[in-house]
């Protein structure tokens, strides 16, 4: 009940916002903030009350939905989903506050769409029925299209439709795979979309789902769907466009949550449901056995080098996201305790850090109205607080020990080193390049002589600091005490590894 409430409160908020008069903009913002704070409170409550000692799903709700196809409204949380739910619920109000002054037209529609988006994201992380999972996955598409397309930058139309087409392409392949899984799950009448049941069936020797060939194909179908979202090379080209054009808060959601939907899906469906298929791509013979790790490696190195070449601040952060998501893929492909733990931790950390980075880029853009890295210089003297927070975020992102980014990446690499020595060693290039572009940016923007154009640049204000502080605290806290998060999903990871080792 608590969980359902959390998912649908933003939807209620959307209806409430739609009923408000268009003129009362301040009221619209406050109502939206209220309706994003409620899920946050509920997420914190779930996070605290979640029983860490078990891997089983908790807060389960399971009621029939479309009986003709045995589709259920089945939701519940395990350690992985509760972590990501908290992240989603946390970024909700932060994004509303970040949008407080920046959205000039149609604030009512903007907030309504944002709330719809939040319902989609929360539902996605809680869904335990494959059909429901897919519906929530797609539910995030429409609001995102409008949010980028209406409130975005100059090339917003192009970016919005590109995002939409790429994602839809991925998700139709996922749909085919999903229907194939459903049809093979049993005799007519006994078929199911229930994820826990499907996981059990796929691990049952002799069942139609427990067939290597079948699993490879459906693995690919789901994988492409999620790979577009993560994004994994070569499906990544929508991301820089979408990020550059999207308004700040939407970039935050995009990098903070939407990318995690891809990796979460990989864990929830591809790994848990198709261990044989995963085995083929992570442990098989020859090229295919290294393919997943190879994709992780390409993401890390390619993303980092692309970031190095950028002169647009936001594009730089976008490409750095591609690089950092590579660590998640690499960690998952290791299929061992430290690899998976590192990957999940990296998902959460990247959500926090990239959210900070995009917020910071937004702060600067609001003042200078451009994002050209070479156009600044010496801002450190004008905006000391801003510079301090940015430095923190940069250091966390480049993987400085003591901050959260380091732990996830280190664990991922540690896990991957067991299985893919060469690729892991080569992947560390990405960390070096990461340090290079962040430090170089730091130097170009904040050090040196102050560009006279920016004599009057105002310091970061209280509202903006408010959005950054919680994320900054998390970054430091998780860097010092990562077990705070790891404890949440330790049992779930152990359970997942158990599933993977049946073979």
């Amino acid at each position, binding site marked *: 009940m608590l969980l359902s409430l959390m998912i649908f409160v933003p939807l209620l908020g959307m209806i409430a916002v739609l009923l408000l008069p268009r003129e009362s903009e301040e009221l619209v913002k406050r109502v939206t903030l209220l309706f994003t704070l409620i899920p946050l409170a509920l997420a914190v409550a779930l996070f605290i009350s979640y029983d860490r000692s078990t891997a089983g799903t908790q807060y389960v709700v399971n009621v029939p*939905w*479309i*009986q*003709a*196809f045995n589709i259920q409204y089945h939701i519940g949380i395990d350690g992985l989903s509760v972590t990501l739910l908290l992240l989603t619920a946390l970024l909700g109000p932060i994004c509303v506050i970040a949008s407080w002054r920046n959205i000039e037209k*149609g604030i009512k*529609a903007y907030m309504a769409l944002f709330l719809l988006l939040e319902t989609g994201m929360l539902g996605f992380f809680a869904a335990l029925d494959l059909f429901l999972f*897919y*519906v929530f996955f*797609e*539910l995030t*598409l*429409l609001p995102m*299209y*409008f949010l980028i*397309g*209406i409130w975005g930058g100059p090339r*917003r*139309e192009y970016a*919005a*439709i590109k995002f*939409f*087409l790429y994602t*839809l*392409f991925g998700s*139709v*392949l996922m*749909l*085919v795979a999903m*229907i*194939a899984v*459903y*049809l093979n799950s049993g005799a007519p009448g006994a078929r199911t979309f229930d994820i826990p049941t499907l996981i059990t069936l796929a691990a049952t020797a002799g069942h139609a789902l427990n067939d290597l060939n079948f699993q490879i194909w459906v693995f690919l179908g789901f994988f492409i769907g999620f790979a577009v979202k993560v994004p994994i090379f070569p499906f990544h080209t929508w991301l820089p466009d979408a990020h550059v054009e999207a308004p700040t808060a939407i970039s935050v959601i995009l990098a903070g949550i939407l990318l995690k939907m891809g990796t979460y899906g990989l864990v929830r469906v591809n790994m848990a449901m198709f261990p044989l298929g995963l085995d083929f791509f992570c442990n098989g013979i020859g090229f295919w056995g290294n393919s997943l790790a190879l994709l992780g490696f390409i993401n890390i190195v390619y993303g980092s080098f692309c970031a190095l070449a950028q002169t647009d601040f936001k594009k730089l952060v976008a490409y750095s996201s591609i690089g950092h998501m590579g660590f998640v893929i690499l960690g998952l492909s290791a299929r061992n305790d430290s690899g998976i733990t590192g990957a999940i931790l990296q998902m959460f950390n990247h959500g926090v850090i990239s959210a900070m980075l995009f917020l910071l880029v937004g702060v600067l853009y609001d003042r200078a109205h451009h994002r050209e890295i070479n156009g600044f210089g010496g801002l450190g003297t004008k905006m000391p607080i801003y510079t301090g927070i940015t430095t923190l975020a940069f250091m966390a992102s480049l993987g400085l020990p003591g901050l959260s980014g380091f732990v996830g990446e280190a664990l991922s690499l540690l896990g991957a080193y067991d299985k893919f020595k060469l690729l892991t060693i080569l992947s560390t290039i990405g960390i070096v390049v990461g340090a290079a572009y962040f430090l170089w940016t730091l130097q170009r923007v904040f050090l040196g002589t102050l560009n006279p154009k920016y004599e009057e640049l105002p310091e970061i204000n209280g509202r903006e600091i408010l959005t950054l502080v919680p994320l900054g605290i998390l970054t430091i806290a998780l860097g010092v005490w990562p077990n705070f998060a790891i404890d949440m999903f330790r049992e779930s990871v152990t359970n997942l590894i158990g599933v993977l080792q049946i073979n």
Partner: protein
Amino acid sequence: MQSLSNIESLLYFSPEILLVIFAAAVVLLDLVVKDRNSSAVAHLSLAGCICVFAAVLITHFSFGDKGPISLFLGMIQLDAFSSFFKVLLLLATAATILFSLRSEELDARLKGEYYALLLAITLGMFLMASSTNLLMIFISLETVSLTSYILAGFLTHNPRSSEAAFKYITYGAVASGTMLFGLSLLFGMVGSGDVGQISVRLTELLASGEVAPLAVLIAITFVLAGVGYKIASVPFHMWSPDVYEGAPIPITAFLSVASKSAGFALFIRFFYSGFGNPELMQAVDWTFMLAIVSALTMTVGNLAALPQQNVKRLLAYSSIAHGGYLLMGGVLLTSEGIGAILFYLVVYLFMNLGAFYVVVLIANEEGSEMIEGYRGLASRAPLVAWAMAIFLFSLTGIPPFAGFFGKWLLFAAVLEQGYYWLALVGLLNSVVSLYYYARIVKAMFLEDPGEETTQVSFSTGTFALLSVFVIPTILIGFLNIFYTFSNISVSVIPMQ
């Protein structure tokens, strides 16, 4: 199955009889009413729809749901399947009448004939949905065709409309001729016009080797020409963009929904009961041909829709593509496939009519059907723009809208039979279709309206009618009752 004589059948035939009475009454009323701007005629036709609707329900629940009844010595059949389509067709007719009332492009002087013809075409479609005899099938098809030619050319002052009617009639004549030839081949082989008999006799004849499978395949292909023309499937689709563009918008809406539905009703009944016999299908593999037609239809429809600037024409091509999706369900001839078609037709009725209603509204407002006319609609008439966006995304097949659930059923049925390539073609087509539907959304939401930023206000009635389409488009997928109903109506089609 109960078979009734001509006199006994009349009682069960009351919906059709009522339609004829109302069509006649409309013509008579038109003679009496002197005021040319009076909407009395339209309201009488609307009342007719309601009465017929009641008659359909009464006949169905008092007789039809006890099992199929054969009327007029095996000419037509009353069963859940035909009742389903009658309800669907009446909804489309009623919507078309309401659209016509609000459309400003129709000529006031010809109103009586217009509504009478609408009721007549509905009668023809009723018969299409219930015919079980080759002769009756042809007659019902021709009734619909002839009436549609006139309706398509109804904008007498508009040369495009006349062009539409002329193209329609030319293609139609060829298609009917071809179909008639196919029907005569079948009759020659079997010696009976009864669809159920065809199945039985053909299986025997094929088994004994008296009839070559190729001959049957040729006959099927020819019949498909006639049906394919009605549902605008490739390669018989060429008429539809021109006709849809030239015809009055309400008629375009009507043709794209009702004509297609009736075509599918005929298609399912004829092929399912006539050729759905597994032994027959083994001897003559005609479904593969249909699979290719289906793949081509959706691909051609979608690719041709991409560059369109005229929304009406764009929706015409999109409706060709939807015919292709629907045909996927027909390829299978499984109850899942047919259930999926029926469900999709319900969904399609709401979302497509809704989209056309918005086209009517914008045409009234802007005097244009071009995409530019939709520019900035979100700021001028936000509710209408959002409704249109919902229809278009539903047509694309994006959850949570009904179109997604419809497509989902179709694809699940296709995959169930192992037609992976066809499902993949269909799904990739959905991605392509997003691009052109999104162009309209883009114009409405992402582009500035230019200097013209005046709010457009619509009447409450307009919004009420709009919500009649919006609410089902959002909700149908979540309601169990529709899945159940489409399954029930399948179960009554005789397989023999």
